[in-house]
């Protein structure tokens, strides 16, 4: 179905070059988005996806190349981009947490001026939320602080799609489903198709290739700051996409966890809220926490952590390490260097007479930089100079570098590319074989399948336990949706 408006350019970026110091973030990338299409953008972490998004939305001025909106040359900047109907939902949630949902709508929409803007903002965001996520149940008068991470993402998406005076022409979604469960993600994808059918355009960035393939009209693959493939979505399959991204696809040898329950459990927890199953962990196990997003998995991890480490007094011997999921909230120290972010958890072991041994610290940094391939010229750079996925790698290394025998992971792989994930999975397996225990909350089925044993959560309690071959998508879904004893 090719109509006239489909050929009209909304945004065209041509020959874009951007360098950050020695790092070439974009090396002559072209990206053209036309009205009435959903463009999927995929690539490795650090391939330049976020950078080109920032160029298109005006936040970053390219060192070379041109950006035109609606076919016309214009001055570059955030105001120009917004005036041309470009909206952006960022990977890190970018609402003001201290404001209410409707106040955030006011911030994002300059058109809501004058008297009674509150009523209008409320009406606008409520209507849009109901349109994108029917049955969402979010109170738009509540402060964003009081919302869960999934609800915040829903609000941000709704605000970006809403139009106070005129509807947006292009909405850029950077990993929009990273905190949404499957049901909400499906609602969003349906809405994108409707939005595109009405003549709008969407730039969709996601690491879930199924989403990209089912929702996009066209897929652009980026690698090392360049566009390496630009074809209709129907010409790609998951496999060819991954190949185009340049990942060495290791045939996912169907890994089946085994029952490793030997001896006495090293961690245990009674049934939560007085119902469901109890939690137990044995040495060398990889245990998965599955289920729909936000059903108490994170809280369970925190409870396990607090049961061993006092809330008041830091323990002398760390038995548990924690990898946070929300890295900007409780993961990174934004003002510190990569090295300091990495070594913070193991300073006790790195110091003699309570002074940190700089050379040992640097040695630790070098080891882990090589081991998990942190893409940076210098470990002394600030942590925020890294892309999101690489930041997550550093947090992961922070936990692995400690002497802790058990590592708790709160969905740490959100927004991390396939190649990095494979590397981390390998490290996980070898560490588990060496006797470490991992408790892993993940929202992704592929990761759950790597586990030896899986607890499925529903409404705050463990409703099922799956071991070895029982860990299949079907079983997990069955247990998450039906309260009964599955499998």
């Amino acid at each position, binding site marked *: 179905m090719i109509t006239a408006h489909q050929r009209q350019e909304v945004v065209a970026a041509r020959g874009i070059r951007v360098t950050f110091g020695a790092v070439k973030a974009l090396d002559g990338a072209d990206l053209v988005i036309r009205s009435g299409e959903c463009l999927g953008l995929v690539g490795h972490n650090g391939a330049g996806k976020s950078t080109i998004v920032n160029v298109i939305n005006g*936040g970053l001025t390219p060192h070379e190349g041109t950006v035109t909106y609606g076919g016309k040359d214009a001055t570059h900047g955030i105001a120009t981009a*917004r005036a041309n109907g470009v909206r952006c939902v960022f990977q890190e949630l970018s609402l003001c947490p201290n404001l209410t949902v409707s*106040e955030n709508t006011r911030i*994002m929409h300059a058109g*809501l001026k004058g008297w009674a803007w509150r009523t209008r903002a409320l009406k606008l965001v409520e209507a849009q939320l109901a349109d994108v996520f029917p049955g969402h149940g979010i109170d738009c008068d509540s402060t964003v602080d009081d919302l869960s991470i999934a609800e915040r993402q829903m609000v941000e998406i709704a605000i970006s799609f809403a139009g106070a005076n005129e509807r947006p022409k292009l909405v850029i979604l950077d990993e929009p489903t990273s905190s949404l469960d499957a049901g909400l993600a499906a609602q969003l994808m349906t809405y994108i198709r409707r939005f595109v059918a009405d003549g709008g355009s969407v730039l969709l960035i996601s690491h879930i290739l199924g989403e990209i393939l089912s929702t996009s009209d066209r897929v652009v693959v980026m690698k090392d700051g360049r566009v390496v493939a630009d074809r209709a979505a129907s010409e790609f399959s998951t496999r060819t996409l991954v190949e185009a991204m340049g990942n060495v696809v290791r045939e996912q040898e169907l890994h089946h966890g085994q029952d490793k329950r030997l001896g006495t459990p090293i961690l245990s927890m009674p049934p939560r809220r007085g119902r469901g199953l109890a939690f137990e962990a044995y040495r060398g196990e990889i245990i998965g926490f599955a289920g729909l997003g936000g059903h108490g998995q994170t*809280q369970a991890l925190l409870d396990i952590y607090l049961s061993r480490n006092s809330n008041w007094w830091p323990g002398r011997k760390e038995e548990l390490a924690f990898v946070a999921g929300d890295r900007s909230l409780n993961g990174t120290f934004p003002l510190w260097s990569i090295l300091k972010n990495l070594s913070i958890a193991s300073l006790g072991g790195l110091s003699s007479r309570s002074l940190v041994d700089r050379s040992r610290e640097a040695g630790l940094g070098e080891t882990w930089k090589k081991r998990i391939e942190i893409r940076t010229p210098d470990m002394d750079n600030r942590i925020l100079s890294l892309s999101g996925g690489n930041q997550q790698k550093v947090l992961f290394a922070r936990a692995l570098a400690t002497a802790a025998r058990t590592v708790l992971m709160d969905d740490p792989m959100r927004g991390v590319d396939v190649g990095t994930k494979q590397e981390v999975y390998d490290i996980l397996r070898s560490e588990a074989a060496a006797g470490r225990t991992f408790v892993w909350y993940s929202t992704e089925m592929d990761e759950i399948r790597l586990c030896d044993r899986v607890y499925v959560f529903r409404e705050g309690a463990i409703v099922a336990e799956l071991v070895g071959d029982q860990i299949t998508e079907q079983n997990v879904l069955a247990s998450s949706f039906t309260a009964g004893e599955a499998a």
Partner: protein
Amino acid sequence: MKLSSATVRLIIPAASLALLLVAVFYMQPRAMSYTGLNLLFNLAVPIALATIAQMLIMAVNDLDLSMGTFVSFCACVAATFLQTSPAIGILIFLGAIAVYAAIGVVIHVRELPSIVVTLGMSFVWGGLAVLLLPSPGGVAPGWVRWLMTAKPPVVPVAIVASILIAAITHFVVMRSSFGVAIRGVGGNHRSVERAGWSVIRLRAATYALAGVFAVLSGVALVGLTTSADANIALRYTLLSIAGVILGGGEFVGGKVSPIGAVIGALTLTLAGSFLSFMRISPDWQIGAQGAILVVVLALRLALNRLETREKTR
């Protein structure tokens, strides 16, 4: 009905003010009169204005350590120029407000810590105040004196002024678009910037508005004391910060409450009178005032914790 977290945050300051008031009335029933109330809360008006000024600065994640010396400077200007040649006095105030806006711009553009810049400015304001009034003196302008000692029917002027200040700033900071943008800068300045706002202008405007309230504070103070002194309001730096925190505000994150800030200022003033009524020697009063602060803040922490527990329930 589910209470919003902003309302919950107001409960503790309001309750502690009520409790202190009851205690004062119990010990000194004569305070329960028009004159008594006016005397109790008289000095709260300039403190409330300074607290609002500090709150605006704190709403954009900054802190103003020059508040005390700036209010002193304004008081000195009010007792000298504003009285002898009002036009020059008003010009000086406008200039001072412009300087405040400029400070905001400098802090934003150079990414300087506001504490350092305003600490430096505090010496500038202090020096200017000493130049104006090397020894205590000056005379309050007649109209200021009249305004601060007015006797409206039924409710004393101190209470009327406090309610007016709270109502006006609540409208500006909590209800207007401008206020939302200010608090947005405190909450997440990057997203405000991405939405097409000019954060530098917002910061400058916030600082200028804070300057306006600080000027009003200085003028109101002179109206009460009739003359000024270069060190008249040095306590205001810490009092204003304490007032904001007591009223449910936070140092970072753009979480502020104008009504809470005014209540906080009233509570601080009342705590002083309360301790005098308790016949606690002035040597111990500052310590006791600190103890009251600690108790109220501990209560607030407990309430916060309760709130988060409810949320994760």
